[in-house]
């Protein structure tokens, strides 16, 4: 596996070590974020004319899903405005560690051990997913959700230590972490031996140059991107200059058996299932389904919500589990018939968890294909909403009257096809490789599962 350390390039290291670029970007993002909340609250109730809806669900979403996550993994987290105010309060400083000994306002409690997983994030995402059609289309609801997340992040920063909100609760952070394993970029230590000899571990505890890892990660032990927020505090605090930002192969983390967990496996199912469900609900031709998803609280919505949850938590994992079990049978029969012994036969649960990671590229492809549909169809709202953010008839940049025009309508289905088929091949190759970690052949049923999912998505999006 080839890696290239970007900090070897001139300017990269000093730019990352300096706090100003990150601070300025985060502050601009925070300004936009607060403005989106205000627009959502006081601006026009027409979603497609409101800056809150358009900037978040078209602008930010497009940047996140089409660029940031696939290419920079958790790059977004490094400039995310959501945890910023809380973190500033918690630290009692906006930039570097303050030299004064003044008391910090937070309680700094440890996050409970039982909750040290991403099940809360899985739950938080599922709840928002059930309300998504309303959130996506109603400015005031989007504003309430954004404001609630902001308040929650501040409160969590004051009660718990470090970035507990990002790590254990943020519904967006959960899937960014999952898909960051695919990104061609990673933060790792240059030489683990240097870390082993460095008893103070200032990257974890912090020093005068920076804070201890806000994500509660010890850089020397990083095996995958999931929980590294790319905040680069460790690059600032490491006295041995041992932190690297590597360019690497896409999906490098997936071939590492360390750190595979059931909560993360379920995140993969939740994300894949949601992308499938959304493609049917939002982009399909079924009006009744759309109204069911919209009328939160109605009998139709309850049925929709139940079906949605059963699909992502039971049906998809259940079918996948069946595929894993069939695959194990196949490999066992094969082993009995041949003289070569397969290595340690893993438990079903272990095999299920391991092979679920093949759904990571499949899921990201599904989300990109889904996002391509509505992003390009509605991108033209962006110029109008920037010029007239509240929908009050302003015309700041002279683009308020730009008519709605879908872009690239001939090209988008072709792009979606390429993305989905590419995701399938990537998922298939990943399944193969994971299966090979113990014995061969086992991946075929799982690959068939991926093929069926891809065909369903193709049918919904380009069929």
């Amino acid at each position, binding site marked *: 596996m080839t890696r290239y350390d970007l900090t070897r390039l001139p300017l990269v290291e000093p730019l990352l070590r300096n706090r100003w670029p990150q601070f300025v970007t985060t502050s601009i993002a925070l300004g936009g974020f607060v403005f989106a909340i205000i627009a959502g609250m006081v601006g026009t109730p027409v979603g*497609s004319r409101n800056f809150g809806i358009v900037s978040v669900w078209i602008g930010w979403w497009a940047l996140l899903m089409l660029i940031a996550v696939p290419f920079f993994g958790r790059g977004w987290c490094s400039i995310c405005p959501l945890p910023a105010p809380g973190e500033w309060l918690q630290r009692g400083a906006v930039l570097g560690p303050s030299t004064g000994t003044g008391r910090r306002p937070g309680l700094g409690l440890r996050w409970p051990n039982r909750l040290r997983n991403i099940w809360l994030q899985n739950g938080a995402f599922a709840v928002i997913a059930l309300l998504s059609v309303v959130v996506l289309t109603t400015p005031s609801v989007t504003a309430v959700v954004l404001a609630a997340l902001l308040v929650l992040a501040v409160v969590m920063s004051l009660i718990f230590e470090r970035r507990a909100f990002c790590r254990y609760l943020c519904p967006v952070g959960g899937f960014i972490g999952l898909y960051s394993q695919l990104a061609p970029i990673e933060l790792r230590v240059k030489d683990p031996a240097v870390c082993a000899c460095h008893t103070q571990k200032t990257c974890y505890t912090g020093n005068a140059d920076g804070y201890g890892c806000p994500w509660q990660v010890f850089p020397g032990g990083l095996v995958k991107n999931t929980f590294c927020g790319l905040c680069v505090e460790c690059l600032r605090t490491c006295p041995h200059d041992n932190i690297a930002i590597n360019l690497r192969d896409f999906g490098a983390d997936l071939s590492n058996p360390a750190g595979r967990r059931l909560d993360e496996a379920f995140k993969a199912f939740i994300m894949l299932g949601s992308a499938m469900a959304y493609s049917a609900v939002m982009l399909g*031709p079924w009006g009744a389904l759309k109204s069911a998803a919209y009328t939160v609280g109605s009998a139709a919505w309850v049925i929709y919500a139940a079906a949605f949850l059963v699909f992502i938590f039971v049906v998809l994992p259940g079918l996948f589990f069946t595929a894993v079990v069939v695959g194990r049978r196949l490999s066992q029969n094969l082993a009995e018939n041949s003289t070569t012994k397969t290595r340690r036969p893993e438990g079903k649960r272990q095999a299920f968890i391991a092979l679920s990671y093949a759904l990571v590229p499949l899921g990201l492809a599904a989300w990109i294909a889904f996002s391509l549909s509505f992003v390009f169809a509605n991108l033209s709202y962006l110029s109008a909403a920037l010029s007239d953010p509240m929908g009050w008839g302003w015309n700041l940049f002279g683009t308020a009257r730009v008519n709605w025009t879908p872009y690239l309508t001939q090209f988008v289905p072709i792009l979606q096809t390429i993305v989905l088929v590419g995701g399938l091949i990537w998922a298939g*190759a990943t399944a193969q490789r994971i299966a090979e970690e113990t014995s061969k052949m086992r991946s075929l049923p799982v690959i068939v599962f991926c093929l069926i999912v891809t065909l369903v998505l193709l049918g919904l999006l380009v069929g």
Partner: protein
Amino acid sequence: MTVALAATTIAFAPVPAATVTPVERHIRIEAKSFEYSPAVVTVNSGDRVTLELAATDVVHGLYLDGYDLNVTADPGQPARLTFIADRPGAFRFRCSVTCGPLHPFMIGKLNVGSNWLMLRAVGLAALGIVFVTQRCRGAGAQRNL
């Protein structure tokens, strides 16, 4: 090599000309918040199609992807859109006049002849699976991309 050749063939092979004689078609589509009925319309490649859009509650529009045509209709005043369906495939049509909260998701579909993109996609997906399974068997435990 063979795989690449097969993939290129599937992806770029020219579409055979439609064999059905084109006809004149008149299709009435009713639009109400937030759905079209019928929501899926099927015609043959080459047909001369007239879509009559009838809004039954508020003003709605119909923007046809791929053909990039647009028509809007006030309630009680159906509007028409005539075109030659000379491009085969499946094309979404979407409401082009803001009509309420679910407006961005008010979507229907026009099928023109065979959906070659979908067929190519299925072919490429199947080929991809064959490629992945074969290559890994051949490569043994060797590391793959």
